[in-house]
């Protein structure tokens, strides 16, 4: 029963294959809908299931943190399918942006989603690694989905560097296993002894996680892959894949390395500082909006990392802040990406300057984009502000005031390039050839939901309180 969400997702994936064979071409737009229905069912299951329990002799377990990870992953996956539906059905006016083979696309995406769900529940090394691979390898396929030069290049780069990342991670896990002789994560923590080999293992594991989370200096693949991949896949990479990286890092830090908690603050702080600074400053000079969003996503990973600080003062607060910001980031970033997907799908244009005058031709789309960008920049009262506030206060409570200052400076810098887009949309006049293009009901629905969510999450405190309350519960039960 505890594995119900994962099972629903996998079964839906296979059901898609069968239905694809049975229905006629005209009926095939139903396929993304089936995928969405499956994800929705999994989401309900994840919500209703008990908040703790284990299966398979403790190799797979659920607690309140992994429950929230699963919920966030499912939301991200569902929204991605929803914004991809138009391109999958060949509805966009710009033909080259269309995505072929809708059943297979959904299938692979669902497999990937299942991998991430398993990852959240994994409690031993093998489960962890296998589910991580399931949460990574399908992404290579998705990145290369369009088979044109850019997309293929993105896929290839992703495969090569992804393999490198996996190799580091696997080698690091192997070393840790060799040192402890334990497969179960919590058992490993008890058997750890510090030493050169141990630090070698930890370093390699963190490097592998860094690949997934686009931490500097393991981030270089991100810009090229994000730009070349189909925009829908970029959106998915920027939220879901990042979430999987966080879940992995959570396992590593809070389960395997739990006894060493006082030691990791410095390393995490430096990685966070590097990541947010490099991401933000590189974003300033970008001209392509997908590349810009890639660097923006890198900097957001830096903020998210702040949630792993401050273990000795108020345990658990950091986790809650991290989960809450991840949720906020998922809806806000997907709102921005929904606009980008729509615009490039209808016009084929993805330069930042192509957004000039959007407020004249599409006032509502420009408004949604502006709210999303302000949310990413962290402007009150949007959820992005509240989320960042909690994360920064975690760093502040950990005594890392320099990092809070740096993060605040970074937020200001990020405002520059986010506002650059808003300025183009609102202040510059539309080009002579710019005219209104179609907005599909599906896209409008997604945008309405995500935009509202990015406001409501910030204004209504109950969401953060729930996450905070439940994760605090977890910490009491397990770690401290």
């Amino acid at each position, binding site marked *: 029963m505890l594995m119900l969400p994962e099972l629903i997702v996998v079964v839906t994936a296979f059901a898609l294959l069968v239905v694809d064979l049975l229905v006629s071409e005209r009926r095939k737009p139903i396929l993304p809908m089936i995928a969405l229905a499956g994800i929705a069912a999994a989401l309900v299951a994840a919500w209703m299931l008990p908040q703790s329990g284990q299966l398979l002799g403790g190799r797979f377990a659920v607690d309140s943190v992994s429950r929230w990870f699963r919920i966030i992953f499912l939301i991200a996956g569902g929204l991605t399918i929803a914004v991809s539906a138009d391109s999958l059905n060949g509805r966009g006016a710009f033909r080259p942006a269309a995505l072929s083979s809708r059943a297979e696309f959904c299938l692979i995406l669902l497999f990937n989603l299942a991998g991430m769900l398993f990852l959240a529940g994994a409690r031993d090394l093998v489960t962890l690694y296998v589910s991580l691979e399931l949460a990574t390898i399908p992404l290579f396929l998705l990145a290369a989905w369009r088979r044109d030069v850019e997309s293929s290049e993105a896929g290839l780069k992703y495969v090569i560097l992804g393999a490198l990342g996996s190799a580091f991670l696997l080698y690091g896990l192997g070393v840790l296993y060799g040192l402890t002789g334990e497969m179960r994560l919590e058992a490993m923590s008890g058997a750890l002894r510090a030493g050169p080999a141990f*630090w070698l293992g930890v370093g390699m594991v963190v*490097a592998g996680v860094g690949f997934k989370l686009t931490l500097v*200096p393991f981030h270089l693949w991100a810009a090229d892959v994000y730009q070349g991949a189909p925009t829908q896949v970029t959106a998915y990479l920027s939220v879901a894949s990042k979430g999987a990286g966080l879940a992995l890092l959570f396992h590593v830090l809070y389960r395997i390395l739990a006894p060493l908690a006082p030691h990791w603050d410095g390393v995490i702080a430096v990685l966070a500082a590097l990541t947010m600074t490099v991401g933000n400053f590189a974003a*300033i000079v970008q001209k392509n909006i997908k590349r810009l969003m890639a660097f923006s996503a890198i900097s957001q990973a830096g903020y998210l990392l702040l949630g792993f600080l401050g273990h000795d003062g108020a345990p658990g607060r950091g986790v809650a802040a991290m989960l809450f910001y991840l949720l906020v980031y998922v809806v806000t970033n997907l709102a921005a990406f929904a606009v980008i997907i729509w615009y490039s799908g209808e016009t084929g244009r993805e330069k930042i300057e192509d957004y000039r005058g959007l407020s004249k031709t599409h006032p509502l789309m420009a408004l949604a984009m502006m709210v999303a960008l302000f949310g990413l920049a962290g402007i009150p009262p949007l959820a992005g502000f509240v989320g960042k506030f909690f994360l920064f206060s975690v760093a502040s409570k950990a005594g890392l005031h320099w990092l809070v200052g740096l993060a605040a400076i970074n937020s200001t810098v990020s405002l520059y390039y986010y506002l650059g887009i808003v300025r183009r949309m609102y202040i510059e006049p539309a080009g002579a050839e710019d005219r209104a293009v179609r907005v599909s009901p599906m896209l409008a629905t997604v945008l309405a939901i995500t935009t509202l969510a990015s406001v409501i999450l910030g204004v209504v405190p109950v969401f953060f309180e729930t996450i905070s309350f439940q994760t605090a519960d977890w910490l009491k039960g397990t770690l401290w």
Partner: protein
Amino acid sequence: MEYELGFALRNAWLILAIPFLSFLLVGLLVRPLSEKAAGIIATLAVFASAAFAYAMAAEFLTLGAATGWKTFVPWSFEWLRFQERMAVHIGVLVDPISILLLVVVTTVSSLVHLYSLGYMHGEAGFGRYFTFLNLFTFSMLGLVTAPNLLQMFVCWELVGASSFCLIGFYFDRPSAVAASKKAFIVTRFADLGFLLGILILGYFGYQVAGEVGGTRQAFDFLFLTDPVVMGKLNAIGAGILGIPVLTLALCLVYMGGAGKSAMFPLHVWLPDAMEGPTPVSALIHAATMVVAGVYLVARLFPLFATSGDALLVVGYIGAFTALFAAVIACTQDDIKRVLAYSTLSQLGYMMFALGVASVEHPLGYTASMFHLFTHAFFKALLFLGAGSVIHAVHSNEIWRMGGLRRKMPVTHLTFAIATLAIAGIWPFAGFFSKDEVLAAALGSGHYGIFGIGLLVAGITAFYMSRIYFAAFWGGARTEGASHAHESPVIMLIPLVVLAVLSVVAGFFPIGEFVRFGAGHGAPHGINPAIAAAGTFAGVLGIGLAWAIYGSGGTARAEALARAFGGAYTVVRRKFYVDELYLFVTHKIIVRFVAAPIAWFDRAIVDGGVNLSAKGGRLFGFALGSLQTGQVQAYGSWFAGGAVLLVLVLWGLQ
């Protein structure tokens, strides 16, 4: 409160709520739909306010006899809490002078609203005009009923802002824009002093509140004018330059009042403010807003009286302004500017009346409020009459009018009544209040001020008669004047109402309840000697004007101007105060203060910002150059980073 309050006083919040809600309704909802409806709704709302104010006044008058005219706050709620004993309430304070001002403000405001329906008919921005007029009325009522210094300050700024909007109502005319800016900047400059004064009073008031105990709030008037508190404040002693703290604070507060009431040397904005529509001049720049400064001093009068020195400053500046403005008024040709200088002069009257008052001789306090009361009516009437004339002739220049006596009989008659009222001729309202002011000055032993007051009374009669004769007597001097005809009825009704008030207001027994200190200032009868001297000055002034201007020709006036030569020019150019200010601001402040600051801002501050931006971009480009697109390079960074990470971890353990 041991007394039973009536409906109006129990619901005193309505006096603020009615115009405020009407402002929102008219400004946001009605105006976009129908400009005409906006005007009508705004006018009805102010009439409703007026009715409510009368109800409050009636209840207060019946209550007052029993309670001894006690000050109380029938309604308030906490708005800001800084500290215990330092919270700010929004509320309605009721005492004789606030009731007096409520009646004056709502009466004049409703009549001006009505008049404006005719005067502004067909103007672009009709709805906008009434929106601002409503905002002004709300702000002014909030100022009058403020139970503490901070509410007063907030409303003080609000009336300033609405005044700014209305002076610049014709924002396509550069002169109107310049005038609105001038008014705003000059009064804001004065308000800086006011705010400093409030802060000083609040700071020491808070300390005193701590000593005295209880739950009273440092900013409340009821607290500040408590005899115990005033004694403690007065005992604080020397502040800066040996000036006692209380005197310093009150002088700063008075600076705000002097700015709003256009006392010398902050008077320069008021004549220019005549760029606004004439009804606005009547309401804001004659009858209500400009008396806010007088009201402020009256509201804090117990404190001023305790300080003594601060009151002398008020008195002498007031007397000087009264004379100074009256002299200038004799030489101006724009009918509204003459009235503006006349307003300055009369405000000076009210101020020095307060200044000569003291705890022993409190008559000036009553006289000042009395003069404020009567002046509001006849000055509003003069402005509305001038508006009626301007409406007909399409010019402000008195020499472009003439002979309007027959063409505009109602305007003529009401204007004549107002002129007699301001000249202080029995039985018109100005006679009584001016008499009381002069009696107060004489009674308290300020003979110099009494002399100035008497002189100003004569000059006032002269220049008012001058414009009256020039505009209404003789023959039409221009095409416009010969084709003039009477204004519509909707504009004449307010004229007639105000004319009646200008006649009867003097008989109102204001000394019965507006007074300071128990027993003193009992109803003051007419002092025959002073009345005779005042009347003589008035008649002399009128006679002189008749001799020079009564014919309607300009020959005698021009000969007189030539005879005075340079002196005439100096006065006509308003003693070059404006030029002096321009010199100081442009040549000295701009060159030696503003220019270096601007340079610092451009070169250092902006330069620093631009430098950091440039640095950021360079850093961004440098990071971008890492993105070679080559997988080998990425892989190398990855491996190198991992090795570094391992080393760091190892080193940190």
